[in-house]
């Protein structure tokens, strides 16, 4: 394909997902400056590999590259974030011990919610973003993050539990709604 044709096709297929790319980069990197670098580099990489893209989901494909670019960047630029070893815990971790009214009022406070997501370990954070903001299926997330589906489910469950606990932290345990 002619280079110009290739760019045109890339602009039509992949660039519409730049918002999603930046959003993921922004949540992973934690600030605008680094997120721009990651999103831009990932998009340029995507363009270089675009000839090899035959899939049907350009957003999943682009976000896979964003994620890889982020971790490469992370290794070069920052000491490792604490990573969490996850075993095959049971998935029954929805938290009902928080008071629904208080939780709801906290959930209404965007700033608190943003902070709670930011405080999640990066492996949890990415899965929350991909599941809730992008609506990706467990299978898509598993492929994107190169982990088994069971790991996606257990990380998601633990991330949610952690969010519920942080947002309902002042509550007495056992307080039923």
């Amino acid at each position, binding site marked *: 394909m002619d280079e110009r044709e290739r760019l045109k096709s890339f602009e039509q297929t992949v660039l519409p997902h*730049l918002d999603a790319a930046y959003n993921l980069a922004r949540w992973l990197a934690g600030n605008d400056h680094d997120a721009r670098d990651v999103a831009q580099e990932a998009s340029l990489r995507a363009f270089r590999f675009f000839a090899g893209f035959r899939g049907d989901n350009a957003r999943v494909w682009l976000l896979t590259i964003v994620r890889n670019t982020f971790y490469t960047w992370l290794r070069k630029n920052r000491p490792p974030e604490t990573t969490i070893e996850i075993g095959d815990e049971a998935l029954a971790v929805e938290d009902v011990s928080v008071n629904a009214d208080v939780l709801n009022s906290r959930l209404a406070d*965007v700033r608190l*919610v943003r902070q709670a997501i930011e405080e999640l370990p990066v492996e949890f954070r990415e899965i929350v973003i991909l599941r*809730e*903001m992008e609506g990706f299926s467990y299978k898509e997330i598993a492929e994107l993050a190169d982990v088994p589906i069971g790991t996606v489910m257990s990380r998601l469950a633990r991330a949610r539990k952690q969010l519920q606990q942080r947002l309902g932290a002042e509550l007495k345990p056992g307080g039923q709604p």
Partner: protein
Amino acid sequence: MNCPQARPLIALYADGELDAARILELEQHLRDCPTCAAAWNNLRNLKKTVKQDALFFAAPTELRKQLKAELRSQVETGPRGILGIWNWLTTGTTAVAAVCLALLLIVTLNRPAAQEQLAQEVVSSHVRALMANHALDVASSDQHTVKPWFDGKLDFSPPVKDLAAKDFPLIGGRLDYLDGRAVAALVFQHRKHVINLFVWPVAGKDLSPATLMPIQGYNPVHWSEDGMTFWAVSDLNETELLEFAQDFRGN
């Protein structure tokens, strides 16, 4: 359905990952059990909250502009010359770049169409074998079992090695069809990842060092020596697959 059965399904239900039969059972349970219903409500509220627009960071307009300008200038100046390779190397990971250099890896951004098509075929074959659950015709970690198995099935004898000592144990082999002929597929494992190594004879010069041919999120590695051509493909990252190639070649 009781609570211990219902509880792990609530998240699947909320995420649209639960099958129809269990949806009905779970919905019934949620009508009957206030505790599980509360868990479901809490989760639904949490999901709605995280999904709200206010938490989504849209790409800044300048980023979009810069990117388009950069892409356009790459296309106009031609990204595939020396500059293109240099860009690739500098933007790739330091680790990968180091390994690439160590292996004297050539990234053929300008690979010929035939090679690209073959890379595509190799990846499809790999994916198909995994999807159809047909990775192995002969399951054995013993190279002295796998190698003779190919006798009489192919018009050549592929080199077979077990690389268990390098953490790439041989798990078996099968016949496959690539490039218009029957080929040997040797199957290796690395942690939970499967590596297919396709081997068949070719006329022509050796292609060394091993060459990376990224396609569809896969990184097939290709080399030729002693009249045989080799394609290794896996969902492993490129660094590990290059290590595999290096170990197989006995470097």
